[in-house]
């Protein structure tokens, strides 16, 4: 663990900074740390065009951070595949999902619905701050 990261985490543990402030500091540290970090998306308020990637960022106070960058084309291809699943298998899937509390019928998912869903993901952002200071952020750009 780098010295800067350890210092930030100790400040959080001592309560001198909040988890949100620590998360921002760790994010700023990450963008300068390695060349291989995922590229930051352009400013979202001025972005044009369909989103291309889904970003999942997890910042943990224990020092375990995860950054995942997924092409939205993969999500789109996966959604298209669900509409091609055989009817018998789809019935079983829908039954299992309904039992889990998710009543989504993928068989009725049309191409235009998928494109509209991908386009609307541009405005989606999920930001979760847990009690122990962990932060999870999911967004598309």
């Amino acid at each position, binding site marked *: 663990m780098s010295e800067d990261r350890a210092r930030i985490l100790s400040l959080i543990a001592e309560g001198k900074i909040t988890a949100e402030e620590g998360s921002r500091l760790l994010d700023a540290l990450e963008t300068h740390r390695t060349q*291989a970090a995922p590229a930051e998306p352009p400013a979202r308020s001025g972005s044009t065009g369909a989103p291309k990637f889904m970003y999942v960022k997890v910042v943990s106070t224990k020092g375990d951070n*995860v950054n995942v*960058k997924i092409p939205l*084309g993969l999500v789109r291809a996966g959604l298209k595949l669900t509409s091609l699943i055989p009817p018998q298998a789809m019935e079983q899937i829908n039954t299992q999902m309904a039992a889990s509390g998710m009543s989504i019928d993928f068989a009725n998912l049309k191409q235009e619905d998928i494109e509209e869903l991908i386009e609307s993901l541009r405005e989606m952002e999920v930001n979760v701050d847990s009690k122990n200071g962990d932060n999870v952020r999911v967004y598309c750009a």
Partner: protein
Amino acid sequence: MNAPPVVVDVRVAEAAGRKVHLWLPVFVLWPLLLLVGGLAIAAAVLVDAALFAMGRPYRFTALVLGCFDAVGEARGTQVLIDSKGRSVDVTVR
């Protein structure tokens, strides 16, 4: 439809200073993928034809092509895991 991934780049860096860089040439699997894909598409076409003859058309061919489309769209996926003392970066190019 995009081409399948060409390379998987794996970088591991440890706090002790040791770094490992693996460059996995996935493109060497393309001939095998072509063979398997060809067989799968041929089988899917036969099944679709049989189902159509029975009056129950189904798109198994589209399903197989969709699977290949999904594999091609995996290019650009990047996973960066930073844990205590170790950083792992996996990029699919």
